[in-house]
């Protein structure tokens, strides 16, 4: 296994632990134990728990960004793109719930961990850039209303993030898939030109 592959393995293990028990309740030795590695060897891959958290965020953002980029590159109206993005997000929330947990419970709730090197949008720019391109092209094609970026971004990501959170809390009465249609419709109605 190459060093990069090993790093990825460690990140996946850490992601699960961070998502399950939180950043502060997880120690490097917990991660090492889970990996079957020595703590000393762990430091060969990541100099600190914070740097591991930061790289995980960049990795997650890139992964999500790459998927949205694929949607951006399909020649379909913005309305259909919205549905594809919602679908993608909800599918991820179901198949890789630890990603959503990590984002909500670690990144958004413990910003102090990310103060050094993840300021502003630095570590999530891969994903935010794709959302920007999606909005910009929608407005350019006169399908979406020209408005403040964050007013639109908050409405879109806050809404689907909130639904995914409720799903993880076990509060939703129905399966998350059943919300794809109505949620996409609501987002489109709020953003359309």
């Amino acid at each position, binding site marked *: 296994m190459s060093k990069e592959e090993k790093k990825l393995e460690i990140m996946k293990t850490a992601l699960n632990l961070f998502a399950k028990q939180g950043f502060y309740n997880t120690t490097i030795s917990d991660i090492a134990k889970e990996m079957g590695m020595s703590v000393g060897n762990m430091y060969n891959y990541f100099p600190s728990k914070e740097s591991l958290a930061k790289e995980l965020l960049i990795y997650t953002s890139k992964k999500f960004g790459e998927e949205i980029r694929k949607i951006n590159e399909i020649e379909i109206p913005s309305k259909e793109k919205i549905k594809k993005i919602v679908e993608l997000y909800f599918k991820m929330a179901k198949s890789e719930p630890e990603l959503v947990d990590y984002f909500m419970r670690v990144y958004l709730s413990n910003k102090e961990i990310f103060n050094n090197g993840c300021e502003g*949008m*630095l570590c999530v*720019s891969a994903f935010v850039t794709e959302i*920007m*391109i999606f*909005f*910009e092209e929608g*407005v350019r094609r006169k399908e979406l209303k*020209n408005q*403040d970026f964050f007013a639109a971004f908050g409405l879109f990501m806050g809404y689907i993030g909130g639904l995914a959170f409720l799903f993880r809390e076990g509060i939703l009465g129905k399966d998350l898939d059943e919300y794809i249609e109505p949620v996409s419709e609501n987002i489109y109605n709020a953003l359309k030109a």
Partner: protein
Amino acid sequence: MLSKPKIIWIDGVSCYGCSHSFYNYPEIKTLLQKIKLLYHPLFPTNEFKIQKCDLLVIEGAIKENFLRMDFDLIDLITQMIKLSKKVLLIGTCAVYGGIFGEGVLFNKNKKGIFFPFKDKIIAVPGCPPHPEWIAYAIEMLIENKKMLLDNEFRPKEIFSYTSHMGCIRNEYFEWKIDAKNFGEKEGCLFYEQGCQGPFTHSSCNKILWNEVNSKPRAGTPCFGCTERNFPKKNLFMTEKFMGIPAEIPIGVSKRAYLTISGVAKSLRNERLERKLIDEDN
């Protein structure tokens, strides 16, 4: 001694702004001594007549059924282009149409009527072009020196730059700090005030106007006056789609531009957030 190169300068639909710009060339006397100016609409010259010349300069746009010196303008230009060794188009109207409509070489985004003569045409757009640009092109042409041209027939020496290059506000552009008002020393004019510098081909911030200044340096946005789509509307406002500039700097993909902008915005240059005059370090 060889005879001086013969130049005829004619005007189409024009405001004479390009001629007036040329008057401001500091070495104009020296330049005029090198040539034989057979006709110019404003300089004291002989009456115009159709004749051969080494260099034909055209200022102003073209228009059908438009009389100039008792000739139909299009006929006049057709005859004169054929009789001239080289043709220099001065100003955005002559090159692309500009303010007055249709250009000699281009009609905004399309090829113009005289495009077939492209091999003898040099284009120096601008509203007006800088006097140094006009003089540079004339000097090079009369001395038979080769000018490298871009695909719109503009001398690369002048137009391979953007007016953004050399702007003293470049640091504010890098850090995405807007100018809050016109005329302020601080801030970039690209994000709110409509500056077209990053995608306008010109050397306004290299060869300064009146040898001292440029519009963006003084706090007014670049209007993109050298470009084929000049004049646009709302010159003092940046068109944006969901907060993202509709036009981005040339040579970079939108994805790359947004990424680097996001990085710059996420970090801060505190010195540039203050008034320069309040800076003690």
